[in-house]
């Protein structure tokens, strides 16, 4: 079979493109594939998951209002410098802090992709103990507050010491 583009070289790339249910078959040679570029699996410009994602991210702002008025200060990740609009174009985060920087806007995206917004799987042992430690501190603070309200200052002081101890442990982790 010859390439359907140039008709000169033999077709070596065979693929089927389905857009909204319309099926198109392509049989082309490698050099025409390189020229065409777009939409061909395995070529650098191929339509990727990331471009799909950016579609979801656009959807993110109701009525597209946020796109027409560019806010004076774009949402930016302090650590790596990636802005939210860059993220929504490339569909990829620049560093782990981006998750915190863009936290307000991530829920709709994550819901769309995973139907969920929070993790319920494996926890690394190291941060596992950190998370437990933080949770214990929060609980102790609440208990301490209760003692203070009841004017049981001796008990409150015990908890304060325990909280300090845990905070030291946390900073050493």
């Amino acid at each position, binding site marked *: 079979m010859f390439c359907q583009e140039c008709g000169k070289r033999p077709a070596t790339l065979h*693929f089927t493109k389905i857009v909204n249910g319309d099926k198109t078959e392509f049989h082309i040679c*490698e050099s025409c594939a390189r020229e065409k570029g777009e939409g061909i*699996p395995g070529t650098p410009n191929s339509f990727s998951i990331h471009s799909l994602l950016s579609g979801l991210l656009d959807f993110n702002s109701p009525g597209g209002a946020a796109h027409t008025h560019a806010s004076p200060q774009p949402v930016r990740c302090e650590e*790596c410098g990636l802005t939210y609009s860059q993220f929504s174009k490339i569909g990829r985060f620049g560093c782990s802090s981006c998750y915190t920087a863009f936290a307000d806007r991530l829920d709709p995206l994550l819901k769309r992709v*995973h139907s969920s917004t*929070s*993790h319920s799987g494996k926890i690394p042992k*190291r941060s596992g103990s950190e998370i437990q430690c933080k949770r214990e501190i929060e609980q102790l603070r609440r208990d301490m507050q209760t003692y203070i309200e009841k004017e049981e200052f001796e008990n409150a002081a015990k908890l304060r010491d325990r909280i300090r101890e845990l905070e030291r442990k946390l900073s050493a982790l």
Partner: protein
Amino acid sequence: MTKHRFSQDALSDWMRGTGPDSDVVISSRVRVARNLRHQPFPMLATSQQAEAVLNRLTEVSRSGNLDAYGPFDTILLSELSELDKRVLVEKHLISPNLANESRAGAVVLSDNEAVSIMINEEDHLRIQCLYPGFQIGEAWALASGIDDIYEEAADYAFDEKRGYLTTCPTNVGTGIRASVMMHLPALVLTQQINRILSAVTQVGLAVRGLYGEGSEALGNLFQISNQVTLGQSEDEIIENLHGVARQIIEHERAARKRLLEESRIRIVDRVRRSYGILSHAAIMDSKEAAQRLSDIRLGADLGLLEGITPQVLNELLVMTQPGFLQQTFNEKMSPEQRDFRRAELIRNRLSGKNDHGGVEQ
């Protein structure tokens, strides 16, 4: 250097064809994505930062902490030729992304090629475990064990709410992608495949063809994987995939049985034709090779062809890819030359393992 063995020898453990349910499931794979805290993800890392991550993570494999899981080799991508990289991609040991786009990339390979750990791919660390046959739970257990070893040495980017943080929001949470590679010729022949695959996509799983992102599966090989990584635990993800794959295996087997009962002579004819063509053709393009190899795999699984082992078929699957052909014949080839060499390689491989012609009634 040992790296030559990985790129010259076609046989990885997953190709032995010995795993459970290997009449339908060719391989089971689990990939886990992890990143280091306080380091930009590979996409935004400077060369220096990428080098730092590389050093930090290769320390783990070089320190011998992974030895419980067998001997490992650490291979820097910069040490590999373009052809070596292509061959490793064709063997599924590295991703096209690591081969083509990584900076300071490396792969840590276990001796039997069941484990490949990619460094500075889309994420800092990607642990991949590949087992023959239907062993998805086993693959996860292995990946999780190796993950624990890396976690001891590296401070992972982990968030209490979002889980393991990844470059792409489609991987965040568990960071796990589990997949099974299935050969489903009878479901394709009986035209049930589209119905089944669309059902699969409705339960949070994705389907794609082998070797590439195209929607058309070459050689009736389908890869089924989880799409959701957040909100479900790893065990739930694995169980979900396991349950669905189990159903598909049963459907495929039932369809094969019915084909044999209702149109045995047609199947025998199809298998023999493909066997005849593969044994004698002088020119074989990759599309035809994939289809005909699928036919004789079906023939072998149904007991219609003797002397063809799953191992030979799995090896041919890899060896007939463009990169591997060029490696085998040690020359650069035009597509026409590849088709010629592909036909030669298949002829030799089939006759070498099957001297008696091997088609029984």
